[in-house]
């Protein structure tokens, strides 16, 4: 379970002098994501989705506010939080000279699994994510879909309760997207807390139990799809999104 409370993050502008005002990436983000459910962070590019996920994944420290994973503070109990999360960044970021299996195995060992357990777990994930055809090939020539599967397997290898995915369907074709959607749904049904970011309305409306609409570094609305449509008085998510963020006015 994830609880974010008024998260705030600013960066120095690249190439800026010291006196210039910093870039505020996240103004104030508050929401919670339950176990056994898929929560979507929906927002346009530059809304602060990735920065929010990076703070929750302990990669960067918030400048204000706080966040907890299963009751553990992301700022203080860093290692304990990392044991409970699986994070898949925007780019798959897999090692091109290692095979799919080696990529996953490396993460398994780093998460503390011994050699035998790691091998068994990798085999399990290869089967579950349908990677049999390419598991022992080097990753250099993988398609985007294959890369995403390897990255997802890596994020799942230590059986984390909370899974965070940053734009996982980016660059995937229809079939790959559908299969990924099914995997995410299954994981939520098994009791995992899933948080994923996207700027694709369809994606979010098809998959999410709860949607947090985020724009300009603020959460504009958090509710179920039904709730958002009712509160904005719109009939589809796109119109509701425009109304909620005030972008259309």
């Amino acid at each position, binding site marked *: 379970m994830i609880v974010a409370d008024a998260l705030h993050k600013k960066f120095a502008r690249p190439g800026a002098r010291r006196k210039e005002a910093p870039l505020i990436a996240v103004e104030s983000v508050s929401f919670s994501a339950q176990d056994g459910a898929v929560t979507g962070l929906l927002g346009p590019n530059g809304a602060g989705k990735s920065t929010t996920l990076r703070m929750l994944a302990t990669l960067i420290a918030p400048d204000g506010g706080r966040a907890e994973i299963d009751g553990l503070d992301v700022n203080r109990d860093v290692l304990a939080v990392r044991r409970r999360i699986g994070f898949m960044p925007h780019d798959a970021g897999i090692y091109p*000279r290692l095979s799919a299996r080696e990529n996953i195995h490396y993460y398994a060992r780093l998460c503390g699994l011994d050699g035998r357990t790691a091998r068994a777990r990798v085999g399990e994930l290869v089967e579950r994510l349908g990677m049999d055809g390419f598991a022992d090939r080097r990753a250099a020539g993988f398609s985007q879909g294959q890369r995403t599967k390897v990255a997802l397997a890596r994020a799942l290898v230590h059986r984390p309760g909370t899974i965070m995915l940053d734009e996982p369907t980016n660059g995937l074709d229809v079939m790959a997207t559908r299969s990924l959607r099914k995997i995410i749904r299954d994981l939520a049904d098994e009791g995992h807390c899933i948080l994923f970011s996207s700027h694709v309305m369809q994606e979010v409306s098809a998959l999410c139990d709860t949607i947090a609409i985020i724009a300009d570094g603020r959460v504009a609305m958090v509710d179920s799809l039904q709730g958002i449509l009712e509160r904005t008085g719109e009939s589809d998510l796109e119109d509701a999104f425009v109304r909620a963020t005030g972008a259309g006015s």
Partner: protein
Amino acid sequence: MSSLLVAAKEIVDNIRDRQTLFYALLFGPILLPLLLGGSLVASFKQVSIDFDEVTDLAVDSAERAPNLMAFLRTYNIDITEAPGDIQKAVRQGEVPVVLSIAESYGDALRDGRPAPLTVHVDESEKSSSKAARRISALLDVHERTLGALRLQHRGIDPALFDGLDVTTNDVSSDGAGGQLLASLLPFMFIMSMVMGGFYLAIDTTAGERERRSLEPLLTLPLPRVQVVFGKFLATLSFVTLSALLTALSIWALFSLFPIELMGGQVRFDGATIGRAVSLASPLAPFISALLIAIAAWTRSTKEAQTYLGLMMVLPMAPFFVLQFLSISPSWSSVSVPMLGQYLLLEQSTLGEAIPRMHILLSVAGTAFATGLLLWLACRLYAEERVLG
């Protein structure tokens, strides 16, 4: 434990990279010693004259100077018949030099006049000029003997003509050539260490960030210090391997082509190279830490290559500085990483005794600098900018 896993993965990963392997296994260990050491050995062989070696000398009209021929034979020179066209034969390298004895040689000798001889040489050809120098040196000896005999014959002490009696006493155990070779040894070691770890260090730090694989790695439940240490260990193993292979190929090169410098006091044998390896060993962790720290600080592999490319000057700096400035080993100079090893390796190769304190200080100074660089790399990895 985790750092060993990181190191093992980086090693496997980089063994699959041809560029890294080329620089670690071929450039430093094989190309460098062959290019530098090989050409030096070759030039030594060409320049230095071995007076004990039996060689042929083509002489035109040898029968005109039987005493001279007898003298030359005592100095391991075999007299052979000169070719027909002397100029052409020397120019085309059929014979290195030809000594021709003029018709008036015998008469001039008997009359107490200078007896004419001609040495035909091709100065543009190293083997020809080397042979000519040997002959000239022998002719000088013969000339001095003749001169002395003529003076004594006339009742004059030959020593009268020696205004000065200059003795050059070379106190070094070798000549300048040995000095150059001795300073080349640390240069080759340091250069191959830097080249050996160069690409692995870039690939595992700046490269990892550029491939975007650093971000998920840093969300794993392990302290970032372990990640840095793993990358350091991987670099260290390549640097060490490169240094050992370089030692092996230098040893092989000099056992195949042994050169004796000034009475055989300077030898590049197993013992010399073993000493050099152990004196240079503190540099392996130092260079690894330096490479990791710089590569971690840069924002991209391109930037890392630029900065580390500039760093290539570093192993050369002490080499050139020591050619121009004479810095003698002292407590302060041996404590400086690289410079200290240069001085110690040079001394050890020249067979000079090294004070124990100097060895201790060089190890301590280099270890301290290594620790500082590792701490710096860990600090960089703790910062958010490491994600790029």
